[in-house]
Structure formats: C-alpha cells, structure tokens
C-alpha cells in the first residue's frame, strides 16, 4: 500500500470496485435480512413512518455535510460529518424498509434521488439552512433528543426490522445528543456573544418545534432533555410559536428544493450511472 496519494491508496486493491464514498447503486443495506411484514402490522403505515424518519435523516445528513470545510475547527468538522454519516446510514436502512413495505419495491436510490420536495416528509426544522454554529447546535440538540426518544420507543415496534434499525440507531443518537448538549452548555454559558447567538438560534428554532410532536408523542422526554441543557447553559427554555404548514404532509420551506437539487443533480443527469 502506498501513501503518496490518498485517493489512489483508497482505491488500491479494489480493482473491481473503485468506489469509496456514497453514490448510487449500492447493495441493499438490508441484504439477507428477513423482510416479512408481521400480520398485525399495517404495512402502509409502517412504510410512511420509515419514509418520514428516513427523510429527516437524509436531509439532516446533507445539511451536516455542508459544514465540511466550513466548521470553526477541524474536530467539529469531523464530528458533524460523522453524525451526518450515521444519519445517512439510518436513512438507507429506513428507505430499504419503506420500499419493501409500501408495495412499490423501490430501492433506496429511488427515495433519495427521484422524489421531489413535495414528496418528502421530513420536518421543516431539518431543511433550514445551517446558519451559524449556534443554530446548527440548537437544531441538532432538538432533533437528536427527539429522534433518540422516538427510536428508544421504536425499539419495541411490532415490525422486527424497524425495531432493529431503531435499537441500533439509538446507540448512535446518544452520541449526537451528547455532542450537541455539551456545545449548547459551552456556548450558552460562554461569552456574551456566544450566549446572544444561542438565544437568537432558539428564537429561530421555536416556530418549528410543534411539528416534531404532531405524529409521535415523545414530548415529555424531549422537554426533560432540553430543560436539563438550558438550565446548565443559563438559557431560557425555547418557547413554541405555532407556524402554519407541516413538513410531514409535504409542505416545505423554500429551502428544501435547492438542497435536493444539489443532492439529486448527478443521479438525475445520469440516471444509469453508479459511483
């Protein structure tokens, strides 16, 4: 193995498969898993749930990836990219499960690359632009607390595949929540400027909080997490201000379409290509 060119080194020994990053045409991440849907599970509802959770994860992963080369420090860039990678992995598993259960037999690429904004069911909080580091941290804290609480419940879902995806994802989400919580305390309890920015981020997030609790009731767990963090950070609890529309019903902000254009551009320009 030679170390003089990092890309060549990555491709070495993989003559038949020189791909080393995520593109299209990968083997089904649920390959070889028993995909039978139990009789007592409503397959359409299961598929809708998988799509909503998959879309939250894919859109969040794309936003987190945008921090690469822009984060305040290299360590934070690596952290945000790793969190995005975990979420991308969760999205792949959830899309595969959705395709097995919604009757279409679609693969993960069909969900990620060949649906338009109105077909996405992520919460709008996930698609908002990154803003400053404070906004990214406040959003990550809310989304990871919510997702973790929800996944811990889904670990006993009657569908064994979704239950397994959730049990696995919950372990990863604990690290995401911990990362966001520690930064929230550091910034909230930091300088006047970092405190001011955290307060501003809380204001920006507030209108989008209600949407998280429309379908799945984990409000109590999430509020407990947020209370613990805001107390330690010297910040107020975010106040929810209702906003019309709902990402879960395909009603999105103007920010989702440009995000998808970047995410989907190559796959749509070269639909048969794999990379």
């Amino acid at each position: 193995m030679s170390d003089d060119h990092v890309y060549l080194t990555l491709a070495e020994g993989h003559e038949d498969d020189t791909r080393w990053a995520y593109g299209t045409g990968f083997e089904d991440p649920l390959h070889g898993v028993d995909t039978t849907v139990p009789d007592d599970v409503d397959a359409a509802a299961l598929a809708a749930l998988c799509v909503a959770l998959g879309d939250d994860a894919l859109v969040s992963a794309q936003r987190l990836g945008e921090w690469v080369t822009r984060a305040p420090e290299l360590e934070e860039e690596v952290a945000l990219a790793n969190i995005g990678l975990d979420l991308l992995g969760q999205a792949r598993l959830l899309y595969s499960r959705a395709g097995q259960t919604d009757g279409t037999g679609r693969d993960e690429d069909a969900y990620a690359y060949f649906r338009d904004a109105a077909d996405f069911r992520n919460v709008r909080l996930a698609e908002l632009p990154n803003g400053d580091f404070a906004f990214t941290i406040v959003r990550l804290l809310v989304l990871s607390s919510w997702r973790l609480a929800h996944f811990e419940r889904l670990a006993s879902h009657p569908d064994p595949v979704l239950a397994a995806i959730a049990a696995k994802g919950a372990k990863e989400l604990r690290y995401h929540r911990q990362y966001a919580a520690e930064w929230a305390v550091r910034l909230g309890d930091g300088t006047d400027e970092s405190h001011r920015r955290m307060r501003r981020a809380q204001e920006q997030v507030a209108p989008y909080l209600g949407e998280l609790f429309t379908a799945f009731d984990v409000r109590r767990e999430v509020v407990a997490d947020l209370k613990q963090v805001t107390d330690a950070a010297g910040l107020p609890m975010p106040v929810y201000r209702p906003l019309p529309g709902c990402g879960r019903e395909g009603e999105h902000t103007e920010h989702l379409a440009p995000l998808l254009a970047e995410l989907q551009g190559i796959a749509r320009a070269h639909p048969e290509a794999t990379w």
Partner: protein
Amino acid sequence: MVTTLLDARRARHIAAQVPDPELPMLTLADLGVLRDVETTEDGTVVASLTPTYSGCPAMAEMRADVAARLRAAGYPRVEIRTVLDPPWSSDWITQAGRAKLAEHGIAPPGPAPRGGPVPLVLSPTRHTVACPRCGSADTEETSRFAATSCKALWRCRACAEPFEYVKEI
C-alpha cells in the same frame, strides 16, 4: 455428515480470518461483526455479518471480502446475510482483538452502557482511558469523533502523543 461438519468448521475459520477494512489489525471475528457461519445441505456457505454503525461504509466491502475468500477457498456457493438484531456492541470485541488494538496504539473500549434508555449526563463523569503507548492515565479527550465512526481522538498529557480510542457503544 462428518465432511459437512469439517467443512463448516473450515469455512468458519476462513471467514473469521478476514481482516476488517478499516482496522486491518483486527479480523472480523476479533471485531465481533462475524455472527455466524453455517453450511447448508447443498453445500452453500451462509455467513452472517452485523454492521458496527448504521452508516459504516465498510459493510459492503466486508461482505465482498468474506464472499471472495470463501470462494477462493473452494466454496462456490456463498451467501452473506445481514443481521441487525441485536445491534453490534463494542463489548463484542474479543480479548485478542483488544490486545491487538492496544499494540497498534489504539485504546480499546471500556464496558458499553446496557439496555434501556440512557439519560443525558452533563456533569463531568470522565472515565479514564490509559494511553496505549506509555500507559499513563493522565489523558484527555480532544474529539469524540474521529476518522471512522467507531473511534474518538484522545491525547496523552504524559507522553504528549495523540491516540485513537474505540468508543463504547
């Protein structure tokens, strides 16, 4: 029947020796991702693998490596299954695997949290991680995320060397 048993044992041995693509000092058995190897009556070898993290990009490569090694060893029919339940835990890294990690300058994980919801803890409850180079306990975390999903970055204050640490999960 005897042949089948011997065959199954040999197939398991071959699959167990496949190195991990990202931590090549470990075999897939050391890492605890090789869950099972069986041979069916028609001679198909069925190897079951479990991913470490949901987004682990090495999973496809592990599958391909195990299948290629088994075919090269004279098993034409190989099937690779993915097992998601129970999810992989760093507790499954074998003792031999932990020793190899330490030898290569990577601190092995402590015990993973078990079962049920894990509360958010903000008080400083830092556990100590011994430096894999000099053994000092005077170490600090520099980043909980590193070059691969499964590792964190630490630094030793005694010998001043940075090192990687496999996270508990």
